[in-house]
Each structure stands twice: as structure tokens, then as C-alpha cells.
């Protein structure tokens, strides 16, 4: 509970940023903050998988894309040709389909965003189970390569399948109405409300994960990270714990994908690319692997900078460099004690102390 109280200052920061942006007429910053929040949702999910359970995944952009693409596809492709299908009729009569008109006045019948979101998340979870059972038996290099392979397959699929728009992706994804008049959309009027929706979802996810890592499961996961054999011997159901964490992080990625797609009004194949997966891993690494707060902070800051275009055409290079530098000099993240100690040594403070000891 004490840990959860740390949420309050974060909440204060979130509100402060909105107030400052609104009063200084720089609301456009909120757009990037909203997008960063969704990316960070994926990143904290990946953080639990990598940092706490110790399982690397180079395929999380794949789960993000599964969520985003399925939701986008279902809410944009018309079901009129399948009107006579029993399933379509059943969904229509239970109010899960939305009728509308295209730009050219044709009849349009699409799946409602709520159902599409549910389908997307369930699909991601099911795929994560089927991929996770065999993949999580692997370790180290093999796990990295296998998840990378999974990511590339998803990328190839969205590039090659006509339903997913091939190289163009899917655009004109409708808004996602939530409750009480709130809706996830990219329209200018909804900028402030969407900022709070995104951060609300992110904080909800954070609270969930903070509770998880403080629980029996969380201790079991840390045991797996330390030594899988030892954890097994202590009665931790390692295979099941790893799989559950994998599925949980995949669901986080899919949720992020669904909401960001509705917010942006579209999704393209680059979201499924290998570089995206690597970027997420880089951010988790910078945050300090087993540090949810670090992952959250770095996720928001680095994504925000990247989305603002600060890194220019060196965007991917920056993340590659971050990855190498962090892993070489501060494998526990830049917020870790050992790294701070090293820095102090570097700048002389620690050195004097050492001389004194000698």
C-alpha cells in the first residue's frame, strides 16, 4: 500500500503538465504525451516480463500490432457482403455492429469498437499462449531469436495481407466511445480528455503491476530471474508463472495497440517492425530492467522526445546507442545505485574515499 502512495505524486505531475500546457496554449505537447503514455503501457508490461521474470522478448511490437491491426480491421472493413451470414446477423441483432455510410454514400456495417477491442485483446492473449508455451522453454540467445522470429512473422503478415492494408496500413479508424461521452479519438476537441484517458489507463496498469510484483507471484518471478532451477526446487511453478507473465505483457501490448490505433485513427506496418521491439527493450533496459518506475519514466521521456522528433533521422541510431551504452556501463539501468556510485568515482568523490580507506 505504501508503494501505491507513490502514485499520488505522479498523478499530481500528470495534472500539472496538463494545467501548464492548457494555460500556456501548448496543448500540442499533450498529443505526444498521450501517445507516450500508450507506448509506456506496453513498456511496463514488458518490464515485468524482462526485469522480473527475466525473459527477453524481441517480439512485443508484434503483440502491439496484433491489437492495433485487429481492432482497426474490424472497425473499418464493412461486413455488408456477409450480411446473410448467421454470425453477422446475430451480432447485428445484439447491437454489436454499427451501421453507417462511407464517404460515397454507400451502406457501411462495421464491428463496434468495444467488441473489436475485446476480440483484439483475446486474440493477442490466445496467440501469446500458443507462442509462449514452446518459446518460454528456451533461454538466452534462443529465446531472443525465437521471439525476434515471431515479431518478423507478424511484420510479414501485416505487410502481405490485403485485409491489413499491406504497406499502407489501415487508416480512417473510427473513434472509440468509452463511457459518459468520453471517446478515444484524435480530434482536437478531445485532446485534454484523451490525455487523461491515456494516463488513467497507464496508471491503472501500473497499479496492477505494482501489486503483482509485490505478491506471491512477484516473488516467484524474481526467484525465476535469479535461478530457474532454484525457484523450481523451492516449489515455484516456473513454467506456469513465466507463461502467465508473458500473456499478461502481451495483453498490455495489445491494449496499448488498440487504444493508440483509435487515437491516431490508423496504424501502419512500421508499428510491427523489429526496430520497435528493440526500442521497447532498450527503454526497459535504460529504466533498469527490474524497475517499473524507471521503465515508466524512461518510457514517457524517451518516447516523448522521439515523437517530438528531437532525434531527427538518427532516431533508431539513438536507441541502438542507448542500448549499447546502458548494457556496457550500467546494466542495472541509469537509476541504479552501482551506476551512481561509479559516476561519483568518475568525478573524483568516490576516489578520495577509496584512498582514505587504503
Amino acid at each position: 500500500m505504501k508503494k501505491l502512495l507513490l502514485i499520488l505524486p505522479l498523478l499530481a505531475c500528470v495534472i500539472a503538465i496538463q494545467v501548464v500546457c492548457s494555460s500556456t496554449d501548448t496543448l500540442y505537447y499533450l498529443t505526444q504525451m498521450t501517445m507516450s503514455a500508450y507506448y509506456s503501457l506496453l513498456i511496463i508490461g514488458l518490464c515485468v516480463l524482462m526485469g522480473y521474470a527475466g525473459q527477453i522478448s524481441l517480439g512485443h511490437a508484434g503483440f502491439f500490432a496484433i491489437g492495433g491491426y485487429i481492432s482497426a480491421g474490424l472497425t473499418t472493413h464493412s461486413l455488408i457482403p456477409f450480411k446473410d451470414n448467421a454470425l453477422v446477423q446475430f451480432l447485428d441483432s445484439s447491437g454489436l455492429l454499427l451501421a453507417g455510410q462511407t464517404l460515397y454514400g454507400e451502406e457501411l456495417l462495421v464491428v463496434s469498437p468495444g467488441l473489436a477491442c475485446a476480440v483484439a485483446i483475446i486474440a493477442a492473449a490466445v496467440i501469446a499462449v500458443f507462442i509462449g508455451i514452446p518459446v518460454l522453454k528456451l533461454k538466452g540467445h534462443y529465446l531472443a531469436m525465437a521471439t525476434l522470429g515471431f515479431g518478423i512473422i507478424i511484420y510479414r503478415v501485416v505487410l502481405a495481407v490485403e485485409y491489413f492494408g499491406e504497406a499502407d496500413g489501415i487508416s480512417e479508424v473510427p473513434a472509440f466511445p468509452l463511457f459518459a461521452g468520453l471517446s478515444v479519438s484524435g480530434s482536437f476537441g478531445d485532446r485534454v480528455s484523451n490525455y487523461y484517458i491515456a494516463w488513467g489507463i497507464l496508471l491503472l496498469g501500473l497499479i496492477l503491476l505494482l501489486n503483482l510484483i509485490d505478491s506471491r507471484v512477484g516473488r516467484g518471478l524474481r526467484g525465476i530471474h535469479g535461478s530457474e532451477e532454484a525457484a523450481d526446487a523451492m516449489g515455484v511453478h516456473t513454467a506456469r508463472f513465466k507463461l502467465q507473465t508473458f500473456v499478461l505483457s502481451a495483453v498490455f501490448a495489445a491494449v496499448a495497440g488498440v487504444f493508440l490505433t483509435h487515437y491516431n485513427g490508423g496504424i501502419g506496418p512500421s508499428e510491427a517492425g523489429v526496430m520497435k521491439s528493440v526500442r521497447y527493450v532498450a527503454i526497459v533496459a535504460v529504466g533498469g530492467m527490474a524497475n517499473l518506475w524507471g521503465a515508466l519514466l524512461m518510457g514517457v521521456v524517451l518516447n516523448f522526445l522521439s515523437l517530438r522528433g528531437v532525434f531527427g533521422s538518427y532516431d533508431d541510431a539513438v536507441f541502438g546507442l542507448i542500448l549499447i551504452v546502458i548494457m556496457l556501463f550500467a546494466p542495472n539501468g541509469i537509476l541504479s545505485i552501482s551506476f551512481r556510485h561509479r559516476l561519483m568515482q568518475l568525478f573524483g568523490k568516490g576516489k578520495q574515499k577509496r584512498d582514505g580507506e587504503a
Partner: protein
Amino acid sequence: MFDVGRSSFIFLTKMTSELFVQYLLAGITYGSIYAIVAIGFNIIYNTTGIINFAQGEFVMFGGMIAITLLQFMPLPLAIILAVILTMIIGAGIEICFIRWLKAPSVLRLVIITIGISILSREVAVHVWGESIRSLPYFVGNEITSISILGARISPQVLWVVAASGLMFICLGIFFKTTSVGREMRACASNRKAATLCGINTENMVTLSFVLSAGMGALAGCMMSPITYSQYDMGTGLAIKGFTVAILGGLGSSGGAVAAGLLLGVIEAFSVSVVPLAFQDAIAIAILLIILFIRPQGLFGSKEASALKEF
């Protein structure tokens, strides 16, 4: 590209014997390239236990540097210099990023080599741009072809196969007969014991990066006229090379050759049943399947693999 092999959906049942040979030769060409990349993986894996995710980038560097140097010098010289420069890059990478780490964890090394791979690609895209380039054909041009068993192939195919075979044989001789080669093998089988025997294992690791960079670069030059070179060709090759290395049993050069040819032939024949867009997915699917059911590889022994960390 192999136009005949990649033209359209031609089902196996309709295949004539000429077409069969055509596919087979295409498969062998690609397969020998995969085998060389896989052997590059193996050399580094044997001496360090690292899978170098930047292996594909060596191939890319080899091709790209040779294309640039070609403006200033004749082709053979450009290739030789490109190989040497890539070797220096390989040595530089090992010395800067890996040599001084004390007992790093596997996860750390995986992430570092992935970082190196991204950084290499970014350097390449900023130096050479996104355009697709290629070396000229070593003999003749795009339309020169020779006839083998009724199939028509480019003479470049022979260059690729011959160079790959030669590299494989030279590497075998190097490891078997020279003292440096024997020291590297000693380092591979037991690093601690090798150190105790007075072998400088750190230098052996650097040497393994140099060797595998050189092999990758040469393969990159040989394949460039057929498959073209681009800054982002590395990832695909690395995945396929890794598939082959696993398929043949990690660490085994002979296995890598057999598995490389197998994957190349499977891929070549798969164009007749699977759309071209999914061709890369075939190698990855094979990789996933082999990792799940036989991680020691087709030719590896179960006992030996029990000692490795899968």
C-alpha cells in the same frame, strides 16, 4: 534475382526436369550463402559462447564497401580491400564492446550485439543511403547464362558456390593444421584450460570476430551481383544464418553446410507453393519448429546439447 525460379505460382506437379534443376541450383546458391553466414555464427559461438546478432551486418558491410571502392580500383582489389576493412571493423567491435566485459550475462551480450547490429545499420544508412546497390557480375552481365542439365544459370552462381566451398575447405585446413587454428579450437573446447596452457584466449576471441567478419564480407561481395546489397539486408540474413546454424547443430561447420543447402533448397522450391511475400517466414517457421522439437539440430547429439544452455 532468379527470374525463372521466382516468376509465379507453378505447382510442383507441373514441374519439368529443367525447372527442377533450375530451382535446385537457385536453392544451392542461396544455401551456400546461408551456410557461410552460419559458419560465421559458429566461429564466434565456439570461442565465446556468444551468438553475434550483428553477423548479417558483416555481410552488408562487405558488399557495400566493395561497391564504394569499385569507383577507385578494379574489382578483385576492391573485394580484397572490402574484406580486410570488414575484418578490421569486426576486430574493432570486439575490442570496443566485448573484450573488457567481465563475465557478462547472456542477456547482456544479446542486447549488446543487437545494439551493435542496429548501430551498424544506422551507420550504413547514413553513409550509403537507402538505395539498393550491387556489384557488377564478375563475368559477363545480367543476361549471360550457361546451361547445366537444361537449366540456364548465371555464371555468378558458380562464383558463389565455388567461393563458399573454398572458404569452407580453407577454414577446415586452418583449424586442423595451423597452430593458431589449434589454439582457437582449444579455446573453444575449454577456455579455462586453454588459458592455463598459455594461450591468450582474449586474442583468440578477437581473432574469431575477425575471421567471421571476413567470411561474412566475402559472402557479401559474392552474392551482391545476384541478390543486391542494401543497408538493411543484415537482419534477414542473420535470422536465416541462425536458423541454419541451429538446424545443423550449433558449433558444427559440416552441419551448417548441410543445413544451409537444405534451407536454400526448401526456400527455392517453396516459391511454387507459398506467395513470395511469405518466403522469409518459411525460414523463421523452420527455426521455431526446430527450436521447439530438436534444439540440438538435425545432426547434433542429445548428450552434447545437454551441456549447452538452451
